[in-house]
């Protein structure tokens, strides 16, 4: 086996040959046969095979024999192969069947993780989150909303009382589960006609949405939908989902290098919005169920939804968007109008 020999702890190299002697020694000799070093095979540290890179045999004296003859080394090691770590990984890499299997396995696991793993992890984490934590997150969240987007409500106290009464009746009917829901009035800023729930049960209603509402049932529907988010802990789940996906991608790819940054951002966004649509559907179902239980008509919610869309995108409705985080309005409205 031909190669190069580096002298102990030195960069100086000579062309050399490695042979196995009858006595079981590995002998490194010059091309003309002069002895460079020799040692029992067991005492030689042989680097594991990787693609077609040169193999290095670290001799006990500190010298090193280097050769491109990978097959020759493997033959030399022969039955000693089990003493070396990592050889099986190389056999995987060189076997087409193993590579195809690895592709399918990785794809299946990633898909399974995205479909079941992330939601399950986020749900488990959300359930394990103590109340004080949810309260802190919500308080901080509302504070930052107030600083950047929301303004003080301009609703009259009569208007606020009307909304509060509907909210209280829902609370009374147990629509908030074992949470304590509280109504918060704000002017929407650029988020306009909107309502959203914080993890600890604070539900923010914007003045713009209040003014868009035409009946009490519509407003009750909005509240019930948001209470659904609170009861199912959707807010916390979204927070956890947002951090679980990039963490997973980093673990799988080793480290996030420049090539993959954009490639991490976009899938995360896509996956998150699809989870979010599921949450909206769940909250809609919860609202429909709650309204029916209270003897009200869920179809009122559909009317409000359509009005909101018209205000946002004109008479033709919003363009269909698969990036949007709410399911499309027509489908939601249809679900709300369905008979029980």
């Amino acid at each position, binding site marked *: 086996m031909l190669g190069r020999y580096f002298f102990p702890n030195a*960069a100086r190299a000579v062309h050399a040959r490695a042979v196995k002697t009858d006595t079981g020694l590995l002998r490194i000799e010059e091309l003309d046969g002069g002895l460079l070093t020799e040692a029992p095979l067991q005492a030689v540290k042989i*680097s594991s095979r990787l693609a077609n890179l040169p193999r290095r045999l670290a001799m006990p004296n500190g010298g090193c024999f280097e050769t491109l003859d990978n097959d020759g080394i493997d033959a030399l090691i022969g039955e000693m192969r089990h003493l070396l770590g990592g050889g099986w990984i190389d056999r995987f890499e060189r076997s087409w069947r193993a590579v195809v299997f690895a592709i399918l396995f990785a794809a299946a696991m990633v898909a399974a993780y995205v479909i079941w793993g992330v939601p399950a992890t986020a749900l488990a984490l959300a359930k394990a989150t103590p109340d004080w934590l949810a309260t802190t997150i919500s308080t901080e969240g509302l504070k930052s909303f107030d600083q950047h987007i929301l303004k003080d409500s301009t609703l009259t106290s009569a208007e606020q009382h009307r909304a509060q009464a509907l909210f209280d009746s829902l609370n009374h009917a147990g629509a908030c589960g074992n949470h304590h829901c509280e109504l918060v009035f704000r002017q929407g800023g650029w988020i306009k006609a909107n309502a959203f729930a914080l993890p600890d049960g604070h539900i923010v209603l914007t003045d713009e949405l209040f003014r868009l509402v035409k009946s009490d049932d519509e407003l009750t529907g909005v509240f019930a939908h948001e209470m659904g988010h609170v009861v199912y802990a959707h807010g916390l789940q979204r927070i956890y989902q947002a951090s679980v996906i990039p963490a997973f991608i980093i673990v799988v790819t080793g*480290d996030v290098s420049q090539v993959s940054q954009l490639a991490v951002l976009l899938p995360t966004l896509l996956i998150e919005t699809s989870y979010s649509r599921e949450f909206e559907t769940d909250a809609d179902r919860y609202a429909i169920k709650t309204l029916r239980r209270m003897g009200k008509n869920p179809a009122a919610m559909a009317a409000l939804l359509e009005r909101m869309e018209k205000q946002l995108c004109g008479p033709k409705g919003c363009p269909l968007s698969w990036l949007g985080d709410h399911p499309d309005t027509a489908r939601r409205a249809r679900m709300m109008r369905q008979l029980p």
Partner: protein
Amino acid sequence: MSQTAAAKVEHAFEFRGNGWEYFRIWIVNLALSILTLGIFSAWAKVRTRRYFNGSTWVAGHNFDYHASGMRILVGRAIALALLLGYELSVKFLPPLGVLFFLVGLFVFPWLVVSSIRFNARNTSYRNVRFNFAGTDVEAFVAYMVWPFVGMITMGLLWPLAQKKKDTFYVNGHNYGGRYFEADISTARLYAIFTLGLVLIIALAAALGTAFVYLISHGPSVSGPLSYLLSKKLMVGAVVLAIYAAIAFIGPAIHTMILNLVVSSTTFDEKHQLKSTMSPIVMAWIFISNAILVLITLGLFYPWARVRARRYQLDHLTLLIQGDADSYVSEVFDTQSAVGEEIGSVFSFDFGL
């Protein structure tokens, strides 16, 4: 300057790996990492680095990487614990977060030095290892003090901060006890940053104008709120233009800085490195790689990495004064620093 010294001989760097080879390593690494819930990824990193180092050849020899997966695993566990502790405390207990931040201020330089040293010591060329001798204090100045100075001067001293960081990195490295030295021109660094800023503004302005024109002359949206909608779109278009400009100019500027730093580096006071990458080609490689990785659902990733590395190495040369073999033999034959014990020093790779 007089030409008293012997002529310099050019040795081109060469990447002898290929996409298929790395693809097989990558996919097996990926599958095993998933199977072991991420534990194998430390060993995967060793195989990856070994492959890239081992495929890098210059002057008839290749590089090698010797780290043990276990050390990388421990390093990652420590880094993860620190990161989690910091994230959680910042989010939920701000006072504790401040404490963590202050401690982190001093821990971070240590992590940086430790990681650079770990990788240097585990990298070898011709049976001789690299080493890194930068200190924690120097790292604190280079990675903490200077960026801070750069920030509070509104970026005016940012190029200087970049220079300090790169000089610290290069000058700390040695190979068999002989040092690298970077003599980076401050004027040229400022020129690059100024150019980058001007280009980003110009490109963003051009793209922004084009987008706004397209929107205002494209199919109009009817309805009472069309004005508002189009205003929103305009803002979106301008933001998009800025992002696009940064996405293209960013890698180009990064490449120019890399060229400058590498070409300003000498080894053992007489040998030189030279990097001649084209900023435009590198920017194109970055952007097209990102797009291809995205549309192939990640499968193109190995080819993307190999493509970028090959381009970088194809434009990197080593200028050796005199004959490479005789220089190496003479200088690195009986070096005491060469055989330094690696395992005795506490150093880990934290993935920085």
